[in-house]
C-alpha cells in the first residue's frame, strides 16, 4: 500500500487535463504521508478558484472558504488549537490580489502554518483573466490586450512581509515540491511556497514546454535547456545560521536578488529560512503562560451544572459598589 493512499479522498477531481494542480495535490498527499501525520490532525484551508477545490480531494479536515480569505480562517483555527497542522492553499489571485492584505499581515505574525500559492498567472475558473503574477506586456490567450499591470513578486513580498520560510516550487517536479513541503511543515512559523504551474487552458505563454525550455535546444546534446533550475544545485544558502542582524540582512538581500531572476533562468528551492523568529503562538505564551497546553478550543467553559467556570465574582470586583 502506498502511504499517500490514506490522504486520498473519493471525490472526482475536475481539474483540466495537464493542470499543475495535480502535481501540487500529489506533493501534499505524499509529504503528509511521509511525515506520518494522522489525517485528523491536519486542516487544509483554501480560497476560491481551481486551487480552492484541493481540500475536497484530500482525506483530512478540509475547509474551502471564500476568495482571498483562507489565511485568516486558518489563523483563527490554528490559534484556537495550535496542535493542528495547518496548510493554506490558494491561487495567485487569492493570495496576492483580493487577499493581499491578509498575505502581508500573516507575515507580521509568523503563525506556524504553511501557505501554498498555485501560481499560474491567470484567473482560470473565470476563464483566463490576468492575475497579479502575470508580467506586463504578456498576452495570454484569453486576454483581449496585453497585460498592462506589472507583476507582484511573491517571493520578495513574502520576505519583506516577514515570512520566515520562503520557497518556490514547480508543479511538475513533484518530488522536489514534496521535499519543500516537508521542510515548510516542519518549519516553526509561517512558510510560503510559491508553486509555478502551467494553466493548460488559459496560459499559453508559461506552458510546461516553456518551463522545460523546449524552445531552446542544446546544439550539442540536442536536448531542451530547461528554464527551471534548483537553488540547492547552485550552492545557494538560504539559511539564517545565527540570529544576528547582519546575517539576516545579508540572507534577505540575497534571497530578494535571487527572486528577481526570471526568463532564461528561473530558480526554485528555498530562498530564505530564518528559524529564530518567535511564532505568534510563542509570543502568546508571554501573555498567557499555559496557552499551548490549554488553548481556546480545549478549554472547559462550564461546570457540571452548566454554569460558567470563570470566576465572575473576581472579575466584577472592580465594578462593585462598596
Amino acid at each position, binding site marked *: 500500500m502506498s502511504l499517500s493512499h490514506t490522504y486520498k479522498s473519493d471525490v472526482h477531481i475536475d481539474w483540466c487535463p495537464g493542470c499543475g494542480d495535480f502535481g501540487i495535490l500529489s506533493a501534499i498527499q505524499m509529504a503528509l504521508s511521509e511525515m506520518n501525520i494522522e489525517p485528523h490532525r491536519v486542516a487544509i484551508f483554501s480560497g476560491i478558484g481551481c486551487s480552492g477545490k484541493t481540500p475536497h480531494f484530500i482525506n483530512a479536515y478540509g475547509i474551502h472558504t471564500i476568495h482571498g480569505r483562507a489565511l485568516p480562517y486558518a489563523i483563527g483555527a490554528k490559534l484556537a488549537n495550535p496542535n493542528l497542522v495547518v496548510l493554506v492553499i490558494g491561487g495567485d489571485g487569492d493570495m496576492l490580489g483580493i487577499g493581499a492584505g491578509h498575505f502581508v499581515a500573516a507575515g507580521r505574525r509568523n503563525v506556524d502554518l504553511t501557505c501554498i500559492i498555485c501560481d499560474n498567472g491567470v484567473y482560470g475558473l473565470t476563464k483566463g483573466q490576468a492575475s497579479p503574477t502575470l508580467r506586463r506586456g504578456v498576452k495570454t490567450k484569453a486576454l483581449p490586450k496585453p497585460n498592462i499591470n506589472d507583476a507582484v513578486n511573491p517571493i520578495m513580498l513574502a520576505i519583506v512581509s516577514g515570512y520566515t520560510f520562503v520557497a518556490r516550487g514547480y508543479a511538475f517536479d513533484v518530488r522536489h515540491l514534496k521535499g519543500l513541503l516537508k521542510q515548510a511543515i516542519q518549519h516553526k512559523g509561517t512558510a510560503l511556497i510559491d508553486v509555478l504551474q502551467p494553466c493548460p487552458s488559459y496560459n499559453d505563454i508559461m506552458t510546461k514546454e516553456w518551463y522545460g525550455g523546449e524552445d531552446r535546444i542544446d546544439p550539442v546534446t540536442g536536448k531542451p535547456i530547461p528554464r527551471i533550475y534548483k537553488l540547492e544545485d547552485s550552492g545557494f544558502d538560504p539559511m539564517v545560521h545565527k540570529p544576528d542582524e547582519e546575517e539576516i540582512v545579508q540572507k534577505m538581500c540575497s534571497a530578494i536578488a535571487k527572486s528577481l531572476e526570471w526568463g532564461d533562468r528561473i530558480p526554485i528551492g528555498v530562498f530564505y529560512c530564518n528559524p529564530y523568529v518567535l511564532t505568534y503562538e510563542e509570543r502568546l505564551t508571554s*501573555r*498567557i503562560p499555559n496557552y499551548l497546553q490549554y488553548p481556546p478550543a480545549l478549554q472547559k467553559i462550564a461546570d457540571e451544572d452548566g454554569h460558567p467556570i470563570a470566576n465572575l465574582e473576581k472579575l466584577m470586583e472592580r465594578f462593585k459598589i462598596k
Partner: protein
Amino acid sequence: MYKSNSLVWRIGGAQGSGVDLAASVFARACAIGGLNVFGTREYYSNIKGMHSYFTVVASSKQVRAHSNNVHLLSSFDSETVVRHALSVVPSGGIIFDPSVVKEDISKIPTMEREYVKRVLETLKSEGLGESVEDVLELAKKRDIVQISLPYLDLLKEVSKLVAEPQLSLLMRMVNIMAVSAAFSLLRYDFEFLSQSINETFKEREKIAKMNVKAAEYVYDYVRQTYGNILKFNLSPIKSSEERILISGTTSVALGKIAGGVRFQSYYPITPAADESVYLEDIEVFELKSEVEVESSIMSKTGSIVVFQTEDEIAAITSATGAALAGTRASTATSGPGFSLMVEGLSWAGMNEVPVVVTLYQRGGPSTGLPTRHEQADLLFAMHGGHGEFPRIVLASGDIEEAFYDAVMAQNYAERYQLPVIHILDKALANSIMTCRKFDPMKVIIERGQIVNKKDLNEEYKRFKFTESGISPRARLGDEGTIFWNTGDEHDEYGHISEDPLNRVTMMEKRMKKLDTVAKEIPDHEKLKIFGEESASNVVVSWGSPKGAILDSLELLKEEGIDVCYIQVKIMKPFPTKAMEKNLSNAKKVIDVENNYSGQLGKIIKSELGIGPTHYVLKYNGRPISIEEAFHGIMSAVKEDKKRIVLTGGV
C-alpha cells in the same frame, strides 16, 4: 422640575481634558451613597480639543436613561457654558470659570459655524450681545443660579496645600475640583466623594491623596462662599442590593467570558473597540476551581485570545476558523466593519458555523456620525449577506440585559449552528449604569449537539439531514470525524454538489433551523412586555430606547395614560405570533426608534400585514431622553401626530 432626590448633572469640556474621569468619579460617588445612577457620554470623532460632555442622572428610584433637563452644570471652559447653559432648568445651577465670560462666542473655534449662528440668533432675539456673558445673562433671566468658580486661583491655593509648585502638573485636578464643587452645592457628604476618588486612583496612592486634598479644599470653599444657594440637594440612600457600576461594552465583555468565549477577533472601530481592549486586559482570568488540562496538569486560570486583525474581513473569518476548531468565538464591530463582514457571514451561514458578531450601531450611512448614536442597521443585520441562510439577530435594551444576552447569543449560535448577530448601539456601549451584580448562577451554557464518536455507525456526515435541520457538530482535530466545508452548495459530507435535488434538501435543512428556533425559544426570550398588557396604546421598540421608554411610563401614568410597551429582543426569526397576540387589541401602535425610516415598523408591517400607526423617531445622532420619550408618546396619544421627529441633545 427637581423631583424627590433625582438629580441630572452634566459636565463638559475639551476632549482629552479628563471630563470622562470626572464624570465617573461623580457617578461612583453617587452610587457609593446608595443612589441609582445612569451616565452617558457624548463626544466628537477627535482625540483632543473638541467638546465632549457627560450627563449623570442620580436618583433614589431606578434610572435607566439620560435627561436633557439639567439641574446642575459643571464647566471650566466657554464652550460648555454656551452649549449647555440653556439646558439647565429654572432654579438649576451653572458652575463656570469667571475668566471665560468675556470670550466672544464666534471666536470659539471648535463649534460648528451653523451652531454658532443659531446661538447668536437666539441671543439677538433676546436683545443680547455675542459673548459668553450674554449666554449667562439669558440663563439668569430664566432663573438659573450662577456659581462662579475661579479655578486658577483655587488651583494656586491647592498647589500650596499639596506642596507642588508646578501648576501644569495639577491642571488635571481641575476636573475633580469641579466635581467637588458640585457635591458641595448639593450638600452631598464629602466622604462619598473621597471614597470614590480613592477607588478611582487605587493603584496611584499619591495622586489619590492629592486629589482628595484638592477636592476637600474646594468643597469647603464652595460651602463657605455659596452655602445653600441651590434650593435642592442630593441625599444618600440605603441600598441593600449588591450592585455594580458598569458600561455597556464591559457588560458584554463579561458576558462573553461567562458564556465561554475564548477567542475574540476585532479591528479597531468606535464604539466597539472598548469591548475587545477590555477583554485583552483581562485575557487571563481565575477559574472558580482548578481544572485538569492534561493528565495531572492542573490550571487555575482560563484565558481568551484577543486577536487584532488587519481588517473586519479577517475578524469574521478568523473567528469562524476558531469556531470550527471548537472554540466559542466572536467578533465585535460597528456598521462599517459589519459591511466588510457580510461575505464571511454568508459563509458561516452556509457552513452552519456558530459564530457571534457583536454589532454596536453608530450613526450612518458611510462614516456618518462615527461617535454618535443611531439604530439604523437593524434591517442590514437581518439581511446583510448574499443568498438565503438562517441567522439569529438578538437586540439588547440595557446594560444589565446585555450581559445575559451575550451568553444567550453564544448558546443560540451553538444550539442552532448559525451566525448570531448581537445588536447593540453607541448609547448602550458608552453609557454606565448601576446594575444588580451579574449572577453567574442564572447563566446556563448550552453547547448544542456535538457528535458522539461512539454512536457513529457510519462515516461521519457533517451536514447529515435531520428532522430539526441540526446535524451534530465536530471540531477540527478530533479523530474519526473528518469533514469538509465549502461555500459552494454541498452534500452531507460537505463536498461540492450542484445536484438540484440535493440543493433543495440542503437548503431546506438549513432554513428549517429557523422554524426550530421559533419553536424552541420561549416568548419571554423573544420579547418583553411592560406596563398594562390590556392598554389600547402600545409602544413597540427595540434596543436602547428601552431605558427612556421605561422611565417615561410612570410620567405617562401620572398624566392618566396607560401604555403597554413591547421590547422586541429576537428580531430574527421575528416573533410574529407573539406580536400578533399583543397587538390584537391595540388602537394605537407607536413605534419608537433611533432611525429615519422606522425599521422595526417595516418588519412588523411585513410580518403581520399591519404596521405601527404612529412613529416617534430620532436620527440626529443623540439618544432619546426620558422627556423626549414622554413627549413623543404623548404627542402620538393625545395629539394623534403620526410621525414625531425628536431633535434633542447637543
